[in-house]
């Protein structure tokens, strides 16, 4: 599978602003995420894939941080960071294979949809258990520090995750250890049906940083350049040995929690309309057109190209070979132990005598 075009320029802000070419790249990364979501939702409705945790509205909050990191840095993800991985070079085919959970998927179809990984760009998969990746990122950052590696760990999580045990331990350890990491809280307003106002009594999640002894900053999460600049600053701080910081990206989850959630049950249409008016892609498009970095109407052309790339990859993934049954017992340990080999052999003997198991029709509820 072909990798995405490599980052063309360093993220170190040279005199602050990103070059026009780099800004265009950011825009294309954001558009790609929007187009992918659209296609994935279609596939989900058609029953081709099981679940989509969309990123609509969060494109700036994904692409900004991704484009503030260097190639050797790591990105620790939650449910919606797949687009950030793409922006850092995860191949599109890997993304779509993971959504199909098919035999091309590098995790052998074991994880649910939307649980991406890509070792080449230092992107471990998330377990599903909210907040657990936070201390992982801190420990990995500590390891980098001990080894004297020039490596920053960007740790991403949602507003809901700030209530998890992992958030508390991770923030505390990182500050005590001055670990080279950055905490990126994507405050998209909602944790499934629970609004940020019911998640914390603090005015902002950024206020929490003070209690751990690190800087915390609120950033407009729909302004990709502001996000990129803020995360770059935090990354530089971590890289220069000054320790971690918390960056809170204020944004909005435009769709349901996932493809099977109906948000009209619990949130106000007016709130959604307000954020529709602050769409991160439209905002950036206007800026780029005004700066003559993008021509009027160019977005449609770019979208057509992206859809063509995505559709070609979807066709490839539709043709993936069947998942080998032996993957059932692989990767539990470095070697398949004897008891598992016996369980597997018995399972195959039953399949030979009574036929193979048939898939059920259970669907994911949220």
């Amino acid at each position: 599978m072909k990798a995405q075009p490599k980052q063309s320029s360093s993220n170190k802000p040279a005199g602050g602003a990103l070059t026009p070419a780099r800004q265009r790249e950011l825009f294309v990364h954001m558009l790609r995420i929007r187009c992918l979501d659209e296609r994935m939702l279609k596939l989900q409705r058609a029953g081709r894939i099981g679940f989509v945790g969309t990123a609509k509205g969060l494109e700036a909050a994904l692409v900004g941080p991704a484009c503030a990191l260097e190639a050797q840095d790591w990105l620790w993800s939650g449910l919606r960071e797949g687009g950030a991985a793409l922006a850092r070079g995860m191949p599109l085919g890997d993304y779509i294979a993971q959504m199909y959970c098919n035999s091309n998927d590098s995790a052998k179809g074991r994880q649910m949809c939307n649980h991406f990984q890509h070792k080449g760009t230092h992107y471990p998969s998330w377990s599903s258990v909210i907040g657990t990746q936070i201390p992982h990122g801190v420990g990995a950052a500590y390891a980098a520090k001990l080894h004297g590696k020039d490596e920053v760990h960007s740790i991403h999580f949602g507003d809901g995750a700030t209530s998890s045990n992992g958030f508390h331990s991770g923030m505390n350890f990182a500050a005590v250890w001055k670990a080279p990491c950055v905490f990126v809280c994507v405050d998209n307003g909602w944790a499934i049906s629970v609004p940020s106002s019911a998640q914390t009594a603090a005015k902002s999640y950024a206020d929490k940083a003070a209690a751990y002894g690190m800087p915390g900053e609120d950033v407009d999460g729909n302004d990709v350049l502001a996000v990129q600049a803020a995360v770059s600053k935090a990354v530089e701080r971590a890289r220069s040995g000054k320790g971690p910081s918390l960056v809170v990206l204020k944004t909005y989850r435009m769709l349901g929690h996932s493809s099977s959630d109906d948000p009209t049950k619990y949130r106000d249409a007016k709130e959604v309309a307000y954020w529709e008016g602050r769409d991160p892609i439209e905002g950036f498009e206007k800026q780029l057109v005004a700066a003559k970095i993008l021509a009027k109407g160019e977005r449609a052309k770019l979208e057509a190209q992206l859809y063509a790339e995505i559709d070609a990859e979807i066709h490839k993934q539709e043709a993936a070979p069947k998942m080998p049954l032996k993957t059932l017992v692989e990767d539990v340990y470095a070697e398949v132990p004897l008891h598992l080999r016996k369980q597997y052999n018995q399972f195959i003997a039953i399949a030979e005598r009574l036929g193979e198991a048939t898939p059920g029709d259970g669907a994911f509820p949220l």
Partner: protein
Amino acid sequence: MANLTLIQAVNDGLRTAMRDDKNVLVFGEDVGPKGGVFLATEGLTKEFGEERCFDTPLSEDGIVGAAIGMALNGLKPVAEIQFQDFIFPAFDQIVSEAAKFRYRSGGQYTVPMVIRTPYGGGIRGGLYHSQSGEAYFCHTPGLKVVIPSTPHDAKGLLLAAINDPDPVLFLEPKALYRAVKGEVPEGKYTVDLSTLRTVREGANVTVFCYGAMVPVCQKAADKAAEKGVECLVVDLRTLLPLDEEGVLDAAKRTGRVVVVHEAPRFCGYGGEISALIAENCIEYMEAPIVRVTGFDTPFPNTLEHHYMPDERRVLDAIERVASW
């Protein structure tokens, strides 16, 4: 009588308990206006207000820890953990605190509370939305562990659990939430904890099961009957404390035993049933006791239907035991 799905019966049970006793509270993640991700708590906030059915911040540790405090001080919390897979942040509160308060206080402080949570596979949820963790909790003295498999039992056992003076973990087989329907009495009734249910009579092989494996075993028993093997199918429905006499009696009646669960085999609940029978009535056994279980692996996603015991695998075990 109403004809309800299992999830509707849970909802009806919660509603009945809340109408009956204003100290009963329901809380957890997304249980309020959304009504729970599986809709177990639909309409409860509307009927009982935000003080009695509400959303919490995203912390299972907080949910269970706070429930313990509420129970210690006169309330009857019924906490929801969204998926059993996410109960582990609360493991400490359940195992170290809820299960041991009575004992460590010489009976002075008690924790009458219920933790409801959906468990098991069948919804393509992968490793973290499919697990069957009952064995971890059955290894915890002081806790009760209940798993219904029919709408009637879901409501009756839930009401018994809410009435119970001790902490009860109420595991709901999510694969059956909408897959089974049945008659459910209106209003209040209970099904006694620690009693098993005979699902089907048969003289040749006894099949022990619970939760989502009950309908699977019923189907396998029907298939076996076509081949002349009659199975006694037993739904254990309370795993802790277990109806030991009932289990031994059912085992002795056929002398041939199959135990079925979805959870991994090693140190699984089936091992306990096998040992109980081996220790107490091995002389009645005419064949080895056979377990049909999930693999000793994490729960897969794409291959989940191969992982979960199905009719074929149960039938295979029944035939092996019957023809021994």
